[in-house]
């Protein structure tokens, strides 16, 4: 029992990084913009978090600063892809290279040193005393509650239960029709792309302030790309994305437990599990359950710049 609780607690913590970044990507992709810069945004957010905490010793401030940096770079990305309508794949790759390189260069003074302050667990009364899942799910830091409960439900409600959400999805499916019916396509795309990037920056700070918790070059280690893949696997749905992130948290946790308990597998092989798992998860559903294809369907206008003047 104890080992299950241990794995679950680590899984929740590890999956939170992916969940927050994936929620941001859901926002961007649902309005028709694919942001492949998540990896770079997370690197910038991770460094911002560490740097802010080393100056102020406040993890909350570090998280907020990372959200801000993510938002800023998200605005740059949206400026290029939404306003200037440049190629989204190229701009995303550019953002990944820029963010990773910039964070690695600027982060040298912080390399290897642990975070000065981290998010402390805030147990929820009664719930945290539940057997097995109690301490894993309800005895975590407040970001975990935000990422697993508040944000996904809020985004789900916004996207699927409000008129504004309908407009959002219309922009991602058919921007010309949305435009014709008076929905501000450019504005909706711009702000949700920037907001999504902001969450990616926050995911980086979560990584260095709650999960790892220290800065090193390459600390993001492909988690941004795994988050992008999760969004595809989750069929662009916030609740499913968070559930999928938890599954990947479990895979990561299994690797940790395997190393700690000396399973007869090389640690390097265990570290490969999240990447191999991601590849399997985005290939297998398409191959195995063809009837589920509509579930995995991407927004029809995804990655297509909208030109009102070109027909």
């Amino acid at each position, binding site marked *: 029992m104890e080992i299950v609780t241990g794995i679950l607690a680590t899984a929740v913590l590890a999956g939170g990084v992916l969940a927050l970044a994936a929620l941001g990507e859901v926002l961007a992709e649902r309005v028709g913009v694919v942001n*492949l810069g998540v990896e*770079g945004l997370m690197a910038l957010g991770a460094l911002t978090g560490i740097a802010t905490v080393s100056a102020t010793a406040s993890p909350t401030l570090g998280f907020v600063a990372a959200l801000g940096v993510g938002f800023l770079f998200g605005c*740059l990305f949206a400026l*290029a892809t939404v306003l*200037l*309508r*440049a*190629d989204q*794949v*190229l*701009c995303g*790759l*550019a*953002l*990944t*290279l*820029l*963010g*990773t*390189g*910039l964070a*690695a*260069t600027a982060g040298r003074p912080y390399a290897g040193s642990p975070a000065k302050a981290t998010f402390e667990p805030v147990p929820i009364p009664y719930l945290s005393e539940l057997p097995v899942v109690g301490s894993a799910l309800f005895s975590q830091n407040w970001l975990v509650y935000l990422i697993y409960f508040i944000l996904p439900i809020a985004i789900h409600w916004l996207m699927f239960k409000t008129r504004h959400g309908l407009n959002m999805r219309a922009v991602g499916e058919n921007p010309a029709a949305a435009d014709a019916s008076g929905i501000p396509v450019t504005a909706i795309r711009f702000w949700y792309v920037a907001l999504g990037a902001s969450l990616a920056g926050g995911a980086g700070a979560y990584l260095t302030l709650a999960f790892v918790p220290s800065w090193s*070059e390459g600390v993001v*280690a*492909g988690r941004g*790309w*795994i988050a*992008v*893949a999760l969004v*595809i696997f989750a069929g662009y749905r916030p609740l499913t994305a968070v559930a999928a992130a938890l599954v990947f948290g479990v895979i990561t946790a299994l690797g940790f437990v395997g190393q700690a308990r000396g399973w007869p597998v*090389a*640690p*390097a*092989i265990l*570290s*490969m599990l999240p*990447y*191999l798992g*991601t*590849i399997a998860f*985005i*290939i297998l559903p*398409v*191959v195995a359950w063809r009837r589920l294809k509509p579930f995995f369907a991407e927004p029809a206008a995804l990655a297509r*710049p909208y*030109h009102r*003047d*070109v027909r």
Partner: protein
Amino acid sequence: MGWRLQRTPSAHRAAALTGRILAILAALACAGIVLAMTGRAPIAMGADFWDTATGSTAGLEDVGLLVTPLILTGIAVALTTRIGLWNIGGEGQFGIGALAAAAVGLHLDGPEPVMLLAMAAAAAVAGALWILVPTIARAYAGVNELITTLLLNFVAALLIAWVATGPWRDRTGGALAATLRVPYEMPPLGEAGHWGLPIAVAVAVVAAAALTFTRFGYETRVAGANPGAAVYAGIPVRARIVAVMLLSGAVAGMAGMIELAGTAHRLQGGISNNYGYLGIMVAVLARGSCLAVLATAALMATLLNAGIILSAQGLNTSAVLAVTGLILFFTAIGDELAHYKLVRRPAPTG
């Protein structure tokens, strides 16, 4: 009469070229401003770099060593862009190619030319195998190749680090986290160079010729430009996708072998050195043209060399990666703006 901007379906060549030059200048200007803001002297650093890099044959040969892998990883990406896809797993295929070459070089014996050929063949096959799953998934299930090829880079890095620090580690030299020195080397060329450069140039020329003059190349280009029309014209699009992506992986793998046998000589964790990612930049700047890759690879090699030379002043290859990202960003914007032209139109009547 009035003037207005009109978007054309394809970018003008001259406009795209101008856009690239402006993108590079803008990116360097941004980097310079950031350097100046952090209390360094960008102009003096640039001059310093220029003297070191071009002042001697050795400086030019250093660029030659950097340009060789960049040409090949650039070709690897350029090939896939011609069929409308992205292989951004060059970094991993490069490393796996080096790993396969090291495996052959460390564990088999034979005359040097035979061994070098065997290492190259092993590297090409390993590179192609490394991209096999993303290729099949793309061609037959429509799975986005960007993410699958990229994620395998991390798997490759873990595998190489494990092999180089574990099973194959050099236990004679002590502290080195690398394998034993591979006894087979590329034949030297000049003082510090080796035959990798002419081989890379030859690969680029052959790839360009194949794309331009052969039926295979023609079908590849049609499949990339308009997959629907290609299917309608009876071109086996899936088979072409498989062939092009496997070739791309093989070229990236070959690059790893040349780096191992020509420059690094030992398999170690950082052997790919971002060459795979910089290859994306090389291919984008060259607009997918295999001959233009030669020029853009030289440009990126110069930039990388600047990072190495200026590392004494707190720069490193990560800074080069950041500047590369900026160039890519501005190039993407420039490419879109190159679609626009200023046209005259009659003033609206009534």
